[in-house]
Protein backbone atom coordinates (compact mmCIF):
# COMPACT_ATOMS: atom_id res chain seq x y z
CA UNK A 1 0.00 0.00 0.00
CA UNK A 2 2.84 2.41 0.89
CA UNK A 3 4.52 1.88 -2.50
CA UNK A 4 1.28 2.56 -4.37
CA UNK A 5 0.57 5.75 -2.38
CA UNK A 6 4.13 7.01 -2.85
CA UNK A 7 3.92 6.48 -6.64
CA UNK A 8 0.54 8.27 -6.82
CA UNK A 9 1.81 11.20 -4.72
CA UNK A 10 5.02 11.57 -6.73
CA UNK A 11 3.04 11.46 -10.00
CA UNK A 12 0.52 14.06 -8.75
CA UNK A 13 3.25 16.31 -7.43
CA UNK A 14 5.13 16.38 -10.72
CA UNK A 15 1.98 16.73 -12.85
CA UNK A 16 0.75 19.72 -10.78
CA UNK A 17 4.19 21.35 -10.73
CA UNK A 18 4.79 20.85 -14.46
CA UNK A 19 1.22 21.87 -15.40
CA UNK A 20 1.95 25.33 -13.94
CA UNK A 21 4.97 25.63 -16.24
CA UNK A 22 3.42 23.94 -19.29
CA UNK A 23 -0.34 23.86 -19.89
CA UNK A 24 -0.01 20.75 -22.07
CA UNK A 25 1.43 18.63 -19.26
CA UNK A 26 -1.78 16.65 -18.60
CA UNK A 27 -2.10 15.89 -22.31
CA UNK A 28 1.54 14.74 -22.42
CA UNK A 29 0.99 12.56 -19.38
CA UNK A 30 -2.12 10.90 -20.87
CA UNK A 31 -0.29 10.17 -24.14
CA UNK A 32 2.68 8.75 -22.22
CA UNK A 33 0.31 6.54 -20.19
CA UNK A 34 -1.23 5.19 -23.45
CA UNK A 35 2.26 4.47 -24.86
CA UNK A 36 3.45 2.77 -21.67
CA UNK A 37 0.22 0.72 -21.47
CA UNK A 38 0.68 -0.47 -25.05
CA UNK A 39 4.17 -1.58 -24.18
CA UNK A 40 3.09 -3.19 -20.87
CA UNK A 41 0.23 -5.06 -22.48
CA UNK A 42 2.45 -6.28 -25.29
CA UNK A 43 5.25 -7.44 -22.97
CA UNK A 44 3.09 -8.79 -20.13
CA UNK A 45 4.40 -12.31 -20.78
CA UNK A 46 7.94 -11.22 -19.95
CA UNK A 47 7.48 -10.35 -16.28
CA UNK A 48 5.21 -10.57 -13.30
CA UNK A 49 4.08 -7.57 -11.30
CA UNK A 50 3.28 -8.91 -7.88
CA UNK A 51 2.63 -7.93 -4.26
CA UNK A 52 0.65 -4.82 -5.19
CA UNK A 53 -2.84 -4.06 -3.84
CA UNK A 54 -5.62 -5.69 -5.88
CA UNK A 55 -7.06 -2.28 -6.88
CA UNK A 56 -3.80 -1.37 -8.55
CA UNK A 57 -4.14 -4.06 -11.23
CA UNK A 58 -5.86 -3.25 -14.52
CA UNK A 59 -5.71 -6.58 -16.30
CA UNK A 60 -4.02 -9.81 -15.15
CA UNK A 61 -0.74 -8.48 -13.73
CA UNK A 62 -0.70 -5.19 -15.67
CA UNK A 63 -0.69 -2.53 -12.95
CA UNK A 64 -1.75 1.08 -13.48
CA UNK A 65 0.46 2.08 -10.54
CA UNK A 66 3.56 0.92 -12.39
CA UNK A 67 2.19 2.53 -15.56
CA UNK A 68 1.89 5.95 -13.93
CA UNK A 69 5.29 5.41 -12.31
CA UNK A 70 6.88 4.84 -15.73
CA UNK A 71 4.86 7.69 -17.22
CA UNK A 72 6.11 10.08 -14.52
CA UNK A 73 9.73 9.10 -15.25
CA UNK A 74 9.20 9.85 -18.96
CA UNK A 75 7.29 13.09 -18.28
CA UNK A 76 9.90 14.46 -15.89
CA UNK A 77 12.80 13.47 -18.16
CA UNK A 78 11.14 15.21 -21.11
CA UNK A 79 10.61 18.33 -18.99
CA UNK A 80 14.24 18.32 -17.79
CA UNK A 81 15.56 18.13 -21.35
CA UNK A 82 13.07 20.72 -22.64
CA UNK A 83 14.21 23.08 -19.87
CA UNK A 84 17.97 22.60 -20.10
CA UNK A 85 18.24 22.00 -23.86
CA UNK A 86 15.78 24.60 -25.18
CA UNK A 87 17.98 25.56 -28.09
CA UNK A 88 19.11 22.06 -29.05
CA UNK A 89 17.81 20.31 -32.13
CA UNK A 90 14.79 18.00 -31.79
CA UNK A 91 17.01 15.02 -32.58
CA UNK A 92 19.46 15.89 -29.81
CA UNK A 93 16.57 16.42 -27.37
CA UNK A 94 15.07 13.07 -28.39
CA UNK A 95 18.35 11.19 -27.83
CA UNK A 96 19.08 12.97 -24.55
CA UNK A 97 15.54 12.31 -23.26
CA UNK A 98 15.96 8.62 -24.11
CA UNK A 99 19.26 8.49 -22.23
CA UNK A 100 17.88 10.28 -19.15
CA UNK A 101 14.78 8.01 -19.06
CA UNK A 102 17.00 4.94 -19.46
CA UNK A 103 19.28 5.94 -16.57
CA UNK A 104 16.32 6.63 -14.25
CA UNK A 105 14.62 3.44 -15.48
CA UNK A 106 17.60 1.29 -14.45
CA UNK A 107 17.29 2.59 -10.88
CA UNK A 108 13.47 2.26 -10.89
CA UNK A 109 13.77 -1.31 -12.14
CA UNK A 110 16.32 -2.06 -9.42
CA UNK A 111 13.90 -0.66 -6.79
CA UNK A 112 10.90 -2.77 -7.94
CA UNK A 113 13.11 -5.87 -8.11
CA UNK A 114 14.47 -5.21 -4.61
CA UNK A 115 10.92 -4.68 -3.27
CA UNK A 116 9.87 -7.99 -4.85
CA UNK A 117 7.24 -6.22 -6.94
CA UNK A 118 8.83 -7.23 -10.23
CA UNK A 119 9.92 -10.70 -11.26
CA UNK A 120 11.17 -11.77 -14.69
CA UNK A 121 9.78 -14.77 -16.54
CA UNK A 122 12.04 -17.78 -17.19
CA UNK A 123 12.97 -16.89 -20.82
CA UNK A 124 13.98 -13.36 -19.78
CA UNK A 125 16.07 -14.65 -16.87
CA UNK A 126 17.76 -17.14 -19.18
CA UNK A 127 18.66 -14.44 -21.72
CA UNK A 128 19.93 -12.10 -18.98
CA UNK A 129 22.05 -14.86 -17.44
CA UNK A 130 23.57 -15.72 -20.83
CA UNK A 131 24.33 -12.07 -21.48
CA UNK A 132 27.84 -10.67 -20.89
CA UNK A 133 28.13 -8.11 -18.09
CA UNK A 134 28.87 -4.44 -18.70
CA UNK A 135 31.31 -3.03 -16.12
CA UNK A 136 30.97 -6.37 -14.36
CA UNK A 137 27.46 -5.69 -13.04
CA UNK A 138 24.95 -4.73 -15.73
CA UNK A 139 23.82 -7.50 -18.15
CA UNK A 140 24.36 -6.27 -21.71
CA UNK A 141 20.84 -7.35 -22.76
CA UNK A 142 19.28 -5.24 -20.01
CA UNK A 143 21.49 -2.32 -21.03
CA UNK A 144 20.17 -2.62 -24.62
CA UNK A 145 16.61 -3.58 -23.75
CA UNK A 146 15.74 -0.57 -21.58
CA UNK A 147 16.79 2.14 -24.10
CA UNK A 148 15.11 0.14 -26.91
CA UNK A 149 11.62 0.39 -25.46
CA UNK A 150 12.27 3.86 -23.99
CA UNK A 151 13.04 5.32 -27.44
CA UNK A 152 9.94 3.64 -28.94
CA UNK A 153 7.74 5.13 -26.19
CA UNK A 154 9.25 8.63 -26.40
CA UNK A 155 8.73 8.64 -30.17
CA UNK A 156 5.13 7.49 -29.63
CA UNK A 157 4.59 10.46 -27.27
CA UNK A 158 6.29 12.97 -29.58
CA UNK A 159 4.25 11.75 -32.54
CA UNK A 160 0.85 11.67 -30.82
CA UNK A 161 1.10 14.69 -28.54
CA UNK A 162 0.34 17.29 -31.23
CA UNK A 163 -2.46 15.08 -32.60
CA UNK A 164 -4.36 14.70 -29.33
CA UNK A 165 -6.16 18.05 -29.22
CA UNK A 166 -9.12 16.21 -27.73
CA UNK A 167 -7.27 15.87 -24.40
CA UNK A 168 -6.51 19.60 -24.25
CA UNK A 169 -10.20 20.31 -24.99
CA UNK A 170 -11.27 17.96 -22.20
CA UNK A 171 -8.86 19.59 -19.73
CA UNK A 172 -10.19 23.04 -20.69
CA UNK A 173 -13.80 21.88 -20.27
CA UNK A 174 -13.02 20.49 -16.80
CA UNK A 175 -11.35 23.82 -15.88
CA UNK A 176 -14.41 25.80 -17.07
CA UNK A 177 -16.83 23.57 -15.14
CA UNK A 178 -14.67 23.86 -11.99
CA UNK A 179 -14.55 27.68 -12.32
CA UNK A 180 -18.34 27.87 -12.75
CA UNK A 181 -18.80 25.65 -9.70
CA UNK A 182 -16.58 27.94 -7.61
CA UNK A 183 -18.49 31.10 -8.73
CA UNK A 184 -21.78 29.57 -7.64
Amino acid at each position, binding site marked *: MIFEIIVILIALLFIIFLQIKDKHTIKKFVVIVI*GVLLFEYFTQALWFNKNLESWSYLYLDVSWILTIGWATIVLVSMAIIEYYQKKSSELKK*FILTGLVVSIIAFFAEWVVLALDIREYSAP*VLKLIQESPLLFGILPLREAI*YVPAFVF*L*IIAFVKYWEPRMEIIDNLVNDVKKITKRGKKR
Partner: protein
Amino acid sequence: MNITSLTLEILIIIVTIGIYSYLKNYEKKAKQKFIILFIAVFLFEIMSEPMWINHLFNSWAYLYGNVSWIVTLGWVDIFFVSFIIVDKLIFKNKKLSEKIKFWLYLLIVTIITVPLEAMLLKYGFRSYSSALTDTFSGLLIPFTGVPIELLIAVPMIAALIIPFYKYVNSIE
Protein backbone atom coordinates in the same frame (compact mmCIF):
# COMPACT_ATOMS: atom_id res chain seq x y z
CA MET B 1 23.53 -24.53 -45.46
CA ASN B 2 19.76 -24.96 -45.33
CA ILE B 3 18.35 -24.46 -48.86
CA THR B 4 14.77 -23.62 -47.73
CA SER B 5 16.14 -20.99 -45.36
CA LEU B 6 18.46 -19.64 -48.03
CA THR B 7 15.51 -19.33 -50.44
CA LEU B 8 13.50 -17.39 -47.86
CA GLU B 9 16.47 -15.17 -47.00
CA ILE B 10 17.18 -14.39 -50.66
CA LEU B 11 13.50 -13.77 -51.30
CA ILE B 12 13.33 -11.22 -48.46
CA ILE B 13 16.49 -9.49 -49.73
CA ILE B 14 15.07 -9.31 -53.28
CA VAL B 15 11.73 -7.92 -52.04
CA THR B 16 13.66 -5.36 -49.98
CA ILE B 17 15.71 -4.27 -52.99
CA GLY B 18 12.49 -4.01 -55.05
CA ILE B 19 10.75 -1.88 -52.44
CA TYR B 20 13.81 0.33 -51.97
CA SER B 21 14.12 0.87 -55.74
CA TYR B 22 10.43 1.79 -55.93
CA LEU B 23 10.78 4.19 -53.00
CA LYS B 24 13.76 5.92 -54.64
CA ASN B 25 11.51 6.85 -57.56
CA TYR B 26 9.46 9.29 -55.51
CA GLU B 27 11.26 9.71 -52.18
CA LYS B 28 14.28 12.00 -52.02
CA LYS B 29 15.16 10.66 -48.61
CA ALA B 30 14.51 6.97 -49.36
CA LYS B 31 17.77 5.83 -47.80
CA GLN B 32 17.22 7.82 -44.62
CA LYS B 33 13.63 6.59 -44.32
CA PHE B 34 14.74 3.03 -44.85
CA ILE B 35 17.42 3.26 -42.15
CA ILE B 36 15.03 4.89 -39.66
CA LEU B 37 12.39 2.20 -40.18
CA PHE B 38 15.07 -0.48 -39.86
CA ILE B 39 16.18 1.03 -36.52
CA ALA B 40 12.54 1.20 -35.31
CA VAL B 41 11.91 -2.46 -36.15
CA PHE B 42 15.27 -3.44 -34.72
CA LEU B 43 14.45 -1.71 -31.41
CA PHE B 44 11.23 -3.70 -31.35
CA GLU B 45 13.12 -6.93 -32.13
CA ILE B 46 15.44 -6.28 -29.18
CA MET B 47 12.44 -5.61 -26.94
CA SER B 48 10.59 -8.75 -27.97
CA GLU B 49 13.59 -11.12 -28.18
CA PRO B 50 12.49 -13.28 -25.21
CA MET B 51 8.99 -13.72 -26.64
CA TRP B 52 9.73 -15.71 -29.77
CA ILE B 53 12.43 -17.71 -31.43
CA ASN B 54 13.57 -17.34 -35.05
CA HIS B 55 14.70 -20.81 -36.11
CA LEU B 56 16.41 -22.35 -39.13
CA PHE B 57 17.92 -19.21 -40.62
CA ASN B 58 21.52 -19.50 -41.77
CA SER B 59 24.04 -18.26 -39.22
CA TRP B 60 24.90 -15.11 -41.19
CA ALA B 61 21.24 -14.04 -40.93
CA TYR B 62 21.50 -13.61 -37.15
CA LEU B 63 22.82 -10.47 -35.52
CA TYR B 64 22.95 -11.79 -31.98
CA GLY B 65 21.01 -14.36 -29.95
CA ASN B 66 17.98 -15.16 -32.09
CA VAL B 67 17.63 -11.61 -33.43
CA SER B 68 17.83 -11.84 -37.22
CA TRP B 69 18.45 -8.91 -39.54
CA ILE B 70 16.62 -10.85 -42.25
CA VAL B 71 13.48 -10.95 -40.09
CA THR B 72 13.99 -7.24 -39.39
CA LEU B 73 14.15 -6.59 -43.14
CA GLY B 74 10.96 -8.65 -43.57
CA TRP B 75 9.15 -6.42 -41.10
CA VAL B 76 10.55 -3.29 -42.80
CA ASP B 77 9.13 -4.59 -46.11
CA ILE B 78 5.70 -5.16 -44.54
CA PHE B 79 5.63 -1.60 -43.17
CA PHE B 80 6.76 -0.02 -46.43
CA VAL B 81 4.18 -2.03 -48.40
CA SER B 82 1.45 -0.80 -46.07
CA PHE B 83 2.68 2.82 -46.42
CA ILE B 84 2.70 2.46 -50.21
CA ILE B 85 -0.80 0.92 -50.26
CA VAL B 86 -2.27 3.67 -48.07
CA ASP B 87 -0.33 6.68 -49.38
CA LYS B 88 0.12 5.82 -53.05
CA LEU B 89 -2.71 3.45 -53.97
CA ILE B 90 -5.80 3.99 -51.81
CA PHE B 91 -5.46 7.71 -51.16
CA LYS B 92 -3.21 8.83 -53.98
CA ASN B 93 -5.18 11.93 -54.86
CA LYS B 94 -6.86 12.61 -51.57
CA LYS B 95 -5.66 14.59 -48.61
CA LEU B 96 -6.25 12.45 -45.61
CA SER B 97 -5.56 13.22 -41.98
CA GLU B 98 -2.52 11.57 -40.46
CA LYS B 99 -4.74 9.99 -37.79
CA ILE B 100 -6.91 8.13 -40.34
CA LYS B 101 -3.80 7.03 -42.23
CA PHE B 102 -2.31 5.73 -39.01
CA TRP B 103 -5.27 3.42 -38.34
CA LEU B 104 -5.18 2.21 -41.95
CA TYR B 105 -1.47 1.43 -41.65
CA LEU B 106 -2.22 -0.71 -38.59
CA LEU B 107 -5.02 -2.51 -40.41
CA ILE B 108 -2.96 -3.25 -43.52
CA VAL B 109 0.15 -4.28 -41.58
CA THR B 110 -2.05 -6.78 -39.68
CA ILE B 111 -3.67 -8.12 -42.87
CA ILE B 112 -0.24 -8.67 -44.46
CA THR B 113 1.35 -10.14 -41.34
CA VAL B 114 -1.22 -12.89 -40.57
CA PRO B 115 -0.57 -15.12 -43.64
CA LEU B 116 3.19 -14.51 -43.42
CA GLU B 117 3.23 -15.46 -39.73
CA ALA B 118 1.14 -18.56 -40.57
CA MET B 119 3.77 -19.53 -43.15
CA LEU B 120 6.70 -18.95 -40.77
CA LEU B 121 4.98 -21.06 -38.09
CA LYS B 122 4.05 -23.82 -40.55
CA TYR B 123 7.59 -24.22 -41.89
CA GLY B 124 9.20 -23.98 -38.45
CA PHE B 125 10.93 -20.61 -38.88
CA ARG B 126 9.08 -19.15 -35.93
CA SER B 127 8.00 -20.46 -32.54
CA TYR B 128 6.83 -18.73 -29.41
CA SER B 129 8.48 -18.92 -26.01
CA SER B 130 6.70 -20.67 -23.15
CA ALA B 131 6.20 -17.32 -21.40
CA LEU B 132 4.11 -16.21 -24.37
CA THR B 133 2.22 -19.44 -25.06
CA ASP B 134 1.12 -19.49 -21.39
CA THR B 135 -0.85 -16.29 -22.07
CA PHE B 136 -2.57 -17.63 -25.22
CA SER B 137 -6.27 -18.50 -25.15
CA GLY B 138 -5.73 -21.47 -27.48
CA LEU B 139 -7.95 -19.93 -30.18
CA LEU B 140 -6.50 -19.72 -33.68
CA ILE B 141 -7.23 -17.39 -36.57
CA PRO B 142 -9.45 -19.47 -38.92
CA PHE B 143 -7.61 -21.44 -41.65
CA THR B 144 -4.22 -20.65 -40.06
CA GLY B 145 -2.13 -21.95 -37.18
CA VAL B 146 -1.74 -18.41 -35.89
CA PRO B 147 -2.90 -17.62 -32.33
CA ILE B 148 -5.81 -15.16 -32.28
CA GLU B 149 -3.80 -12.91 -29.95
CA LEU B 150 -1.72 -11.90 -32.96
CA LEU B 151 -4.64 -9.73 -34.10
CA ILE B 152 -4.03 -7.54 -31.05
CA ALA B 153 -0.25 -7.90 -30.89
CA VAL B 154 0.50 -6.80 -34.47
CA PRO B 155 -1.40 -3.48 -34.31
CA MET B 156 0.32 -2.82 -30.96
CA ILE B 157 3.74 -3.47 -32.45
CA ALA B 158 2.87 -1.25 -35.40
CA ALA B 159 1.51 1.44 -33.07
CA LEU B 160 4.96 1.72 -31.50
CA ILE B 161 7.05 1.36 -34.67
CA ILE B 162 5.14 3.74 -36.98
CA PRO B 163 5.31 6.76 -34.61
CA PHE B 164 9.08 6.20 -34.23
CA TYR B 165 9.49 6.15 -38.01
CA LYS B 166 7.22 9.15 -38.59
CA TYR B 167 8.59 11.25 -35.73
CA VAL B 168 12.29 10.65 -36.35
CA ASN B 169 11.79 11.36 -40.06
CA SER B 170 10.00 14.60 -39.23
CA ILE B 171 12.93 15.92 -37.15
CA GLU B 172 15.75 14.74 -39.40
